[in-house]
């Protein structure tokens, strides 16, 4: 099977440059579209139960530059990002900038996200592979049962139940908070976040593994009398992982950017909370900031997936 060096570093570099060149206009379109959609939503960041007197509102809008036309605001915003990497101030949390919010929240979601990712991949992959190898045995039924169960139990139901069991009844774990990422505070968020991803990975791995195991080259390998262990690990695993890897790219981004449910139920202080609340609060700059972050990560990891794909599957040329 061709390895990375077969198609050369030069080729890969070319590929990456090409992808980055496409990523820039993609992100720009994302910025413009989000900006326009956001401003099209009724109300604004300073609409509140008690409307501000016109003079007070005018002073605030002047401070944040909201008194300018939308194209001017958008231009200033993009210039600020490109020249100073400045994503602007939060309108809701007035002591903090968007850079502060991301710098503080992203490490938190990244920590519980990456752990969830590892748990989901290892547990999901193991479940899927063992179910495929032992198709139609109790192990298979168990794996399928677990993954369907995990898939249908949404995390907004599971998270409060976990707290009820582990905090109130058993008293084993703290019911939330972050506490600088102490392990006791990580367990429930990781379980709640990884479960449904694990289920998807298990089902994907199982079905693609089954498909590969029925293919001709595996039959040939078996006919040659190779041991089953080496057939699975050396020949079947790589092609079976292809569909899983294309799922893992977006899943990885989804997990490391956190979850609104996790952050609001466990009070972890992560970034996931802002994906929903900045929109409700019309906190324009924060909403743009998290959208761009998510967009950039998505573009980046799609690229990583493509590279991995080419490495695994010789049929794909960059």
């Amino acid at each position, binding site marked *: 099977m061709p390895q990375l060096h077969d198609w050369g570093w030069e080729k890969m570099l070319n590929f990456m440059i090409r992808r980055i060149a496409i990523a820039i206009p993609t992100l720009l379109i994302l910025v413009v579209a989000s900006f326009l959609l956001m401003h099209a*939503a*009724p*109300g*604004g960041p*300073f*609409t*509140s*139960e*008690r*409307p*501000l*007197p*016109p*003079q*007070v509102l005018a*002073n*605030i809008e*002047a*401070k*944040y530059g909201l008194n300018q036309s939308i194209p001017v605001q958008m231009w200033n915003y993009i210039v600020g990002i490109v020249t100073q990497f400045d994503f602007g*101030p939060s309108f*809701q*949390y*007035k*002591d*903090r900038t968007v850079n*502060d*919010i991301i710098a*503080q*929240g992203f490490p938190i979601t990244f920590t519980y996200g990456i752990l969830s990712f590892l748990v989901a991949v290892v547990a999901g992959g193991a479940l899927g592979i063992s179910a495929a190898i032992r198709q139609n045995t109790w192990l298979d039924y168990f794996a399928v049962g677990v993954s369907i169960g995990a898939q249908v139990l949404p995390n907004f139901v599971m*998270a*409060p139940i976990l*707290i*009820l069991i582990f*905090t*109130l009844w058993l*008293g084993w774990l*703290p*019911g*939330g*908070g*972050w506490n600088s990422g102490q392990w006791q505070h990580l367990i429930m968020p990781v379980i709640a976040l990884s479960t449904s991803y694990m289920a998807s990975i298990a089902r994907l791995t199982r079905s693609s593994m089954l498909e590969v195991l029925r293919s001709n080259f595996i039959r040939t390998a078996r006919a040659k009398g190779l041991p089953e262990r080496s057939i699975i690990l050396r020949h079947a695993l790589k092609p079976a992982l292809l569909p899983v890897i294309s799922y893992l790219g977006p899943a990885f981004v989804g997990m490391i950017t956190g979850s609104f449910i996790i*952050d*609001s*139920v*466990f*009070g*972890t*202080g*992560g970034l996931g*909370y802002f994906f929903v609340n900045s929109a*409700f*609060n*019309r906190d324009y700059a924060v909403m743009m900031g998290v959208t761009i972050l998510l967009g950039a990560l998505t573009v980046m990891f799609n690229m990583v997936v493509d590279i991995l794909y080419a490495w695994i599957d010789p049929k794909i040329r960059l």
Partner: protein
Amino acid sequence: MNISVKAALLASAFALASPALAAGTHPVTGEPLADNQTFTYRVLDEHSSVDPQIVEDVSGSEIVRDLFEGLYNQDEKGNLVPGVATSFETNADKTVYTFHLRDNAVWSDGHPVTAGDFVYAWQRLANPETASPYSWFIEIMGIKNGGAVLAGDMAPSDLGVKAVDDHTLEVTLAQSLPYFALTTTHASTFPAPKWAIEEFGTDWTSPENIVSNGAYVLTEHVPNERSVRERNATYWDNEHTILDKVVALVINDENVALTRYMAGELDRTEIPSGQYPALSASNPDEATVFPRLCSYYYTINMSDSAPEFLKDARVRKALSYAVNRDIIVDNVLQGGQTAAYTFTPAATAGFSVPAVDYAGMTQDERNAAAVALMAEAGYGADNPLDLTLIYNTSEGHKKIAIAVSQMWKQALGVNVTLENQEWKTFLQTRGNQDYQIARAGWCGDYNEASTFLDLVQTNSGYNDAKYSNAEVDALLASAKTMDDPQANYTQVEEMIANDMPIIPIYHYAGNYMIQTDLQNWPVENVEQNWYSKNLYKVAE
């Protein structure tokens, strides 16, 4: 008025009792105190700021009241007690207030707290460049030139406030305001450390930079997770502070917060709606309910954009009469709320609820009167009224809207379309009078009836009904300078009951689960202005 006598009495009471503090008992009550004096409570959302002139939300103001101290504080009942000021006097027509500041108040970095710090803070509040969301409070306070400074027509230095010397603050008002001193407990009037703000800019409120003059200092802040404040050793009255540490945890989900309270992680949390009856039965010593200075009501569009039938006072009255408030508070809410027939809550200081006519009727009488009013207006079984009621998306508002629409249907045959909208969309719809009937709620900014009744003034920015009654406007204007405006307020409430631009439904109740070792929660302070320095934990 001079309340320094009260201060002196209070100080001497503490002085007599203070030796007991060392022995681990409360200096006044003698209760044994717990070793661990940490108070942990739940907040719904991350606070907007802890900058006194910038903060605008309730949870932020709670922190600011601990970190900073203004001229006056409130006691457990909401009465004024000395803060940085020890006394004040006014001129005869109550347009000039002179505050005398204590000489032992210092900032957490050792600077003395001076009258100049208040002058700076108030100018900063009014300065358009600060863009404070509460800058309008300068106008509520009636400070001379406040409006002009706010509009940028005058320099902040022209504001009617000056430091006569380091410990004397003189405030000049645009007009006589008898309750001016009450406004000095508001967070936006607290002093600000000019040197720290100029050095650190908006970062001055982070735990490493902040300089404050209250009983506590900010020691930790993990946004959206927790903020921690600890005893301020430089506070002038630190020896009487009992709680050492106060932790606010952000927990968005009220049911999760209750679970964590039950697991002992929190000392105080809100009771989720509908759970008060069960919790007061299972944990009677912890479930606490008390009146709040807030009203829940429906506002009726009376502007030009409104349909004709809503401009008919008989229809508006009929709709209000047909709302069975007792069912809403006793069966729907079940959390200690009280039925409302006037806009101003009974809990408001110096306000006695006037006997508006429909409050005294039974619900059957009200329904009969409502049917008659509708018939007079030309609506009945053969000609039913169709209307739309909007509310912002929330389970609680939905339950009430469903109950009210059923009452209108049953009593009057009115067909109601219910429509829920996302919060900001809802505010825009209501603010643009693009509605027929809309849900609304209002909490007083200070403990005086005008904080409610000013809403029905023609020019009020909060008058979403666009109600306009020259008589009401005149009564409210003259009430401003009266020593006892009750007679005016009674008349205004009667006019509201007669014109019914709004349908008062209930007055809020606060309800908390409070652990039994936490003492002195000010349940009688209707504004819920609580100060951690007045709380303590007893040994159990």
